[in-house]
């Protein structure tokens, strides 16, 4: 059975949810939306899913929308809660899993969703981090995802990385300056848990809190990771290969969770040409 990178990422992200977890995602989050629903329809039926800031609790949408306030995301919901209530869950230590992305992601898992350049010299204004600035300091764990791990070359010939040594602006807090710097300041929550990209899965080194390569996707080498990452991640002697989705997961993903394929929207077209085989 053939499958594609969007499916590998969605399944990999879904498997990070444990049954009974409280799960929330924010704005502009097709893959988290897909992953959260998929987990609930497969191995985590008792997860508590909040579908974006619209506040739908455990909706059963027939397909997933491109905008997170779309009514389809409210279909079948057991309740519609207000956004402030959902945020309270995080401060109370009751939000288990969130997903954050970033225009820049640094080696400690700090995320920049705000601006490229400096506060007084903004080159690119990004849309903003929404809940991330606060929630990254509250949620039990957060999963970082990006579909732009691969470096690009700008029109001026400069190499552009998403995974950078240092973000221009910390919107959401990862392990801050590494080591125990986050903990020492009394920041709540467990910080970043995993980083899932179109190339690999990272965890974090226990002591330095620098990203640590865990698995590469089936068509990717460790060399590819080093090539596309601005900093040097921790690379253990043995790096595994990311597990394939099961046929059941793919069926449910394609037919029940995301029949219209919003998961593909996050990817540059070329990435979607990558084919994998179970």
């Amino acid at each position, binding site marked *: 059975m053939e499958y594609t990178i969007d499916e590998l990422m969605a399944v990999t992200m879904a498997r990070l949810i444990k049954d009974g977890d409280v799960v929330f995602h*924010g*704005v*502009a989050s*097709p893959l988290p939306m897909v992953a959260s629903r998929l987990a609930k329809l497969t191995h985590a039926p008792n997860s508590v899913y909040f579908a974006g*800031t*619209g*506040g*739908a609790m455990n909706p059963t949408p027939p397909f997933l929308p*491109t*905008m*997170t*306030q*779309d*009514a389809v995301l*409210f279909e079948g919901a057991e309740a*519609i809660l*207000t*956004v*402030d209530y959902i*945020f309270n869950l*995080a*401060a109370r230590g009751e939000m288990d899993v969130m997903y954050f992305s970033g225009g820049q992601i640094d080696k400690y898992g700090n995320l920049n*969703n*705000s*601006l490229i350049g400096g*506060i007084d010299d*903004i*080159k*690119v*204004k*990004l*849309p*903003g*981090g*929404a*809940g*991330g*600035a*606060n*929630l*990254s*300091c*509250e949620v039990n764990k957060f999963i970082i995802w990006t579909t732009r791990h691969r470096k690009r070359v700008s029109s001026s010939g400069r190499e552009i990385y998403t995974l950078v040594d240092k973000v221009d*602006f*910390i*919107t*959401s*807090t990862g392990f*801050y300056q590494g080591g125990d710097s*986050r903990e020492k*300041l*009394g*920041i*709540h929550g467990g910080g970043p848990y995993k980083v899932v990209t179109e190339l690999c899965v990272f965890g974090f080194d226990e002591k330095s809190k620098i990203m640590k390569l865990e698995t590469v996707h089936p068509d990717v080498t460790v060399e590819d990771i080093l090539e596309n990452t601005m900093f040097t991640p921790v690379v253990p002697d043995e790096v595994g290969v990311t597990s394939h989705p099961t046929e059941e997961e793919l069926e449910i993903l394609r037919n029940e969770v995301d029949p219209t394929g*919003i998961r593909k*929207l*996050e990817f540059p077209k070329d990435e979607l040409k990558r084919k994998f085989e179970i």
Partner: protein
Amino acid sequence: MGVFPESDKKMSLEDAAKLVKDGDIIAFGGALSVREPIAFIRELIRQRVKDLHTVGTAHGFDIDLAVGGGIVKYVQNTYVGFEFDFGLAPNFRRAVEKGEVISKEDGCNSLIYGLRAAALGVPFLPHLNFETSDIMKLHPEFKKFKCPITGQTLIAIPALEPDVTVLHARIADKKGNTIISKPYVADILMARASKKVVVTAEKVVDRLDREPHIPYFEVTAVVEVPYGAHPTALYPDYTYDKDHMGEYVRLARDPDNFQQYLDKYVFGPKSHEEYLELIDIEKITNWKTW
């Protein structure tokens, strides 16, 4: 923070917009693609209000239009964009990069704590520590302090009291009792926190026959504006107008082209009724079928 006990607050869009003053802190209800008070914003642009300071969580069309219409100086929203439909908000991005608009990007929860402090009538609320976020640098008004109970570091978020909140609702009565529609987002909190509240509603009736989401005494003015959220959605009556938003974003990427948009949709129509003639109502009301 304001009580309006009057029994008839119905007025025209023009008069209601006059309640907004240059430099006001303004909160728009709804979020992203839903229930934003766009008809009201078009009127603000026509009235050439200046230097507004917008506050709110994740928004899109409303803020980008207001910025493009030249009425905004500060944006304290936590996200401004079109998600995976159309990506970045062109006017917002350009204005911030040029320095014409100042981004005071906030976090959703710290923004809400500011509103909640105002709603509770206390000078601040203590937020769990997020001093590691550079969002703090955009908000010198947020103060680190030591918890008087536990000694831990907390962030004091001062009360954020909008001068005006503008909500687009499904139905309101002339006294101001208001039913919004799902999703509620932060509308109810915004109304409670604000000095004045303008409700634009699909329909204004003499007396509501159910319990309101927002009690009348919080509401300053009520305006009947059918399809007043267009091109954002008001469920279940109509969905957002994806084609219109697509046209908008395409034009807004270039300032000259954006002027065409303003001329056609903001300055062109002599009334809201004329605006509606430019819109494909059938398409947005038959949304269940797409």
